């Protein structure tokens, strides 16, 4: 926090690059510059990505606190300020966002729904707006502005689903909007209360006050102030993640959204929930977190098994992948509430991994859909023979999602489960049941792979499908690179967040010494 300055930081540059692109897009003529529009959008998403890579380069991994921070007062009388900056946890998610975004935009180039429904300019404007809002959620350190960005993400996503979605798009869009909105209202109340008590809305400051005992939210039973505040935040995040019984909006939104929308939804938007838990619930309400951890982690474990089981029974590929998200994010929840470094770091790595693997799966489904215009698994069969290259890539992505060692998801799942076994907040049975989810992942994903790609190529319409276009390949190759990189050498990513997560655990340990006993 020493590094906070009011001069322009790289974080602000990265945050507002999509906005610059958006402004340029607004001044372009849709009819005349049809081709230029998408390349401008793509170009700015790439520029944002490069800027975030610069952030990574400028980031000092040994430093636990905020870096590249910038702050100036906005409404000083209320303690609200424009306060941005990254620590290890948020930097990873910023990188994930800026990595997924160009791929999502590039994958839209060849999507025929855009030609069918038109309004391409609006589409790319929403894409950049979404990127801006998501980056804002990850870099902003002021709760009020966080809340504003949090709500802004809804708007472009609502329209992306509602305008360019599938048959039931309006229903899905409204449902998506209302569910998330309903949760965030509670969060707003909690934010106002916390900010009022602390006299500032800057999260690092409040966290430090909580750790030093300067600010105390009473916690004696589950109806205490702290517990209620914790739940206020948690419900908003839990709907977004989604944690088990609140997941009902997810299959609708995913199935109805256009491919790029699903990719972003699964890749980044869901991570906002898990990120929020790590950023707000843990440091601000440590006692309540420990108190609630078994219940929330229990819901996470139920989600793992339930999501996998429901996924297994789907006939629609996209729905299958959507439910698999419930299962995979259950792991993240379990890791977070293990409340030890292994679990927490595993969870953060798994957030990134899930973005890549599930993003890849949605891209895969999208590419199949572009060719056959159906998402029903029974319409496929033997696709590997028709599209050998695509089949091979799909296999790798599927295996990655399944958590094959050597590929990315394994590292995260392994660390999470390792953390869960050793967590003295939870206990071995959580890990035992969660590990069953690893088996079930193999069951539903292999079944999907078998039904779609294996077997005889017996359907006439499947025989002459076109092989991957170079643009599609350009979308998939970065995903493959990340799958192998994070699977074989994940240390680079662990290094980024090591100090920050250590700091977080230590901070929580100030209030709840119990969790420090887990650290060797």
């Amino acid at each position: 926090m020493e590094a906070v300055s009011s001069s322009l930081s790289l974080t602000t540059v990265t945050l507002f690059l999509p906005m610059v692109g958006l402004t340029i897009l607004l001044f372009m003529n849709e009819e005349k510059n049809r081709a230029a529009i998408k390349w401008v959008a793509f170009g700015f998403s790439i520029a944002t990505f490069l800027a975030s890579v610069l952030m990574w380069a400028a980031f000092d991994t040994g430093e636990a606190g905020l870096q590249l921070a910038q702050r100036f007062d906005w409404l000083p009388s209320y303690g609200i300020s424009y306060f941005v900056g990254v620590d290890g946890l948020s930097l990873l998610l910023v990188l994930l966002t800026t990595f997924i975004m160009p791929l999502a935009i590039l994958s839209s180039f060849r999507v025929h729904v855009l030609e069918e429904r038109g309004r391409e300019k609006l589409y790319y404007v929403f894409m950049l707006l979404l990127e801006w809002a998501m980056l804002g959620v990850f870099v902003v350190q002021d709760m009020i502005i966080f809340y504003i960005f949090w709500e802004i993400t809804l708007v472009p996503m609502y329209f992306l689903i509602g305008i360019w979605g599938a048959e039931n798009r309006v229903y899905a869009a409204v449902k998506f909007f209302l569910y998330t909105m309903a949760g965030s209202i509670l969060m707003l109340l909690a934010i106002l209360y916390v900010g009022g008590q602390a006299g500032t809305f800057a999260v690092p400051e409040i966290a430090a006050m909580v750790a030093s005992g300067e600010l105390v939210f009473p916690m004696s039973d589950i109806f205490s102030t702290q517990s209620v505040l914790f739940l206020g935040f948690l419900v908003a995040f839990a709907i977004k993640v989604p944690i088990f019984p609140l997941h009902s909006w997810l299959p609708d939104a995913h199935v109805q959204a256009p491919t790029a929308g699903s990719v972003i939804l699964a890749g980044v938007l869901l991570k906002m929930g898990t990120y929020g838990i790590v950023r707000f619930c843990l440091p601000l309400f440590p006692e309540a977190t420990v108190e609630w951890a078994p219940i929330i982690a229990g819901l996470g474990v139920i989600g793992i098994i339930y999501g996998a089981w429901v996924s297994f029974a789907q006939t629609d590929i996209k729905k299958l992948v959507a439910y698999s998200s419930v299962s995979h994010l259950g792991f993240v929840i379990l890791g977070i509430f293990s409340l030890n470094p292994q679990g927490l770091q595993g969870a953060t790595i798994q957030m990134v991994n899930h973005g890549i693997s599930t993003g890849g799966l949605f891209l895969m489904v999208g590419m199949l859909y572009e060719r056959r215009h159906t998402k029903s698994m029974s319409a496929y069969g033997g696709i590997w023979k028709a599209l050998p290259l695509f089949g091979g890539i799909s296999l790798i992505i599927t295996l990655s999602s399944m958590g094959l060692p050597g590929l990315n998801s394994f590292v995260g799942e392994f660390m999470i489960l390792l953390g869960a076994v050793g967590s003295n907040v939870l206990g071995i049975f959580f890990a035992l049941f969660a590990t069953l989810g690893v088996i079930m992942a193999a069951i539903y994903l292999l079944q999907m792979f078998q039904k779609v790609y294996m077997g005889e190529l017996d359907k006439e319409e499947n025989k002459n499908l076109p092989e991957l276009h170079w643009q599609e390949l350009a979308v998939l190759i970065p995903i493959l690179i990340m799958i192998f990189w994070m699977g074989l050498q994940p240390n680079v990513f662990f290094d980024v967040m090591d100090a920050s997560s250590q700091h977080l655990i230590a901070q929580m340990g100030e209030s709840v010494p119990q969790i420090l006993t887990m650290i060797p």
Partner: protein
Amino acid sequence: MESFAQLAPAIILFPAIGAFINFFWGARLGERNSAIIGTFASGMTFVIAFSLLLYLSNNGFRPAVINPPIFGSWISIDSINFDISWQTRVDTLSVTMMMFVTFVGTLIHIYAIGYMHGDPLFSRFFAYLNLFLTFMLILITGNNFLMMFVGWEGVGLCSYLLIGFWWDKPDGVGWNNSNAARKAFIANRIGDFGVLMAIFLIFWTFGTLDFYKPAETAVDYASVGHHGDEDHATEGEGTHEEGVAAEEGETAGEEAHGEEESHGEVAVPLYYYGTAGVELSQLGAFGQAEVLMVEYKSANEVVEAAEAVLADAQTEDDRAAAELGVDEAEAVAQDLRPNFDIGPFNLNIQTMLVLITLFMLLGATGKSAQIPLFVWLPDAMAGPTPVSALIHAATMVTAGVYMMVRSNAFFYHAELTSFLVTIVGATTAVVAGFIAIGQFDIKRVLAYSTVSQLGFMVAAVGIGAYPAAMFHMVTHAFFKALLFLGSGSVIHGMEHGHHHLHEHGHDDHGDHHDEHEEEFDPQDMRNMGGLRKKMPITYWTYLFGTLALAGIWPFAGFWSKDEILADSWLVGFADGELRGYIALGMLFIAAGFTAFYMWRQIEMVFHGEARHEAAKHAHESPPSMTIPLMILGFFSLTIGFINIPTPLSSIFSFFLSGLVGEHSLANFLEYSITHFHIPDFQPVIAIAALSMGLGAIFFARSIYGGTKAINKDGKDPLQASPSTGQVWALANKRMYWDEIYWAILINPFIRIGKFLANVIDWEFFHDYFHDKVLHRGFVTVGNLLSKPFDIGIIDGAVNGVGWVVGRISGGMRRVQTGYVRTYALALLLGVVIVIVLMLLPMIQN
């Protein structure tokens, strides 16, 4: 020679490169080139394995831990000292595995050139084979559990890809193949669940996943005086007798010690701990387990000593004091015992080891196809035959046994698990042997035979005979690979014979023939018979394999099976342990089954007369297939000599000296296996086993010999006989194992899945809860608010204000005439009023 150890990472690299090239350029390279690349990569692994063997023998068998040059650590978190590296380990155990895996692997590559000739995905097949070798070698060479797990899952993946290699075959065959592949993967994943849990517990117990730390490798074995060949020459019967004697008279603590000494077992080597002044944290998981167990046992000794005092106590006072002493001792022991917090539980080291090994056992039952997870292996025969030989007979399926042997330090101390391991292994050996009798598919018989033989190895682990398990694994790799490749040659011959028939006989047979073609199964032994004349090389090599598997002297199987039986005899009769009796009894039965079903197969396939046109036209396979057969045949005869038990070795030594010594393999393995049995030759057991095998062969010959192998109805003689028909049917139906799983596990799983997805999630959560409760509830409340409340009160108030305003302005509008003069007059009046108001004060004044 020192630097040879540095080659260890290359053994993984070569097949990885081979796989890479064949994946991406294989199709363009053509069949010949991709075969050369694949086989070369595989051959290089053998060369490296051999140089590693040279390294070991020239460096006093000292293990080496090698960090690969580019990939350093894999997962490392600095703040909590968490570090898992890509680290390879060269020790006698891993080199033993490497040697036979790469050797058999290379032969199978060569064989596959002929077998897969003409397949459209030829290059991909070689890519998969190379990929498999990569993962298998990662599994073997890894120096930590997680790296082993990478290989473990990786070989499972390759097995999946290769079982389902022909997933696009028409008429539902491809679908069945991919089903078999999926089944294999999922069954393996259930095992992987166990391995993962074991890994987690190991980490939280020992704080590391490394097998051994570098500090341990640095110890020079020879200088510590741990090893010496003469130990084993002098130990043996004599020592064993002492052990039995010791058991009878002495105290409990010493009794345990005496047990360790029995039948040539080497005491726990703590050379690196204490002597070398090494900290506990500098030891790997196994070293720590040993040390902690010593602490645990010494804690127990305190209690035992106190209890002994209690037992000796005469007077009441002494008794009371002794009881107090026992309590105190318990308290002291509680502190001394190493305890671990696993989540909210606090468990001692013994319990931890039992838990860890139980989970490992689950893993081993998956990978090594033991009860209850063995059902995938027979189905895995859907893959091409070289795959069955390499993965599903010789190498991958032995990974479970390898893991248990590697973790012998854990299993040795976990007696409960060891007992269970014995039961699982022995039961599997018998059950699979029994089922094999009822099969007609040539590969399926071999598959069940593999399961049964793996049961032998697992049982050997259970009784603590780790070198014997390894020995059987090595010999089995050779003769079972030989048998599979032989069966592949037979199938190849049958297919060609059928092809031949098809080309020549089409005109003669017409429609009848076509009909026949659909039914023809080249793997069905009922269609074979009399192939001895057609395929002489295959026949003779197959016979070698059969005799080796049946355990007939002097073939390899005799030595290795005898070693296991001798060991279980010693554990049973000498140490009086139940698991020894169980293993001995059940494995004897299994050995009988083995000889029986193998000879049944010989009779059905090669003897008698051809029962199908295809068998009449079959011919010998090309040299690329028969040469590997001959090489493997040679080794099936001779590989057993690497581990000849003690007294016999002197008989052989005059013409084999230098090449083999007594118990060469076991002594070699001793450098990496801590806990040891090396049984001496047990003539009783050997003769009994041999006569069991020969008896079963003669029995099989009497039933199936000559032309009786299959009777006129196409039935097995046992099937036709009313006395054995029902039992045979049970074997033929595979004891309904799959059906039971479907009924009690898989169908409920599917049904629950559908229920959760359709009823709970969709109808309840999605439709009912969301649409009905939330959505309709919202609408209902909304309607309630809108009609009476909103329209009645809110609207009323607002409209009322509007109405009043309207009425007032309606009155006032008349003022506005629109005539200028009205406005001017108003203006004037206004002015006048203003003036009057201004002047009013003046007037008043």
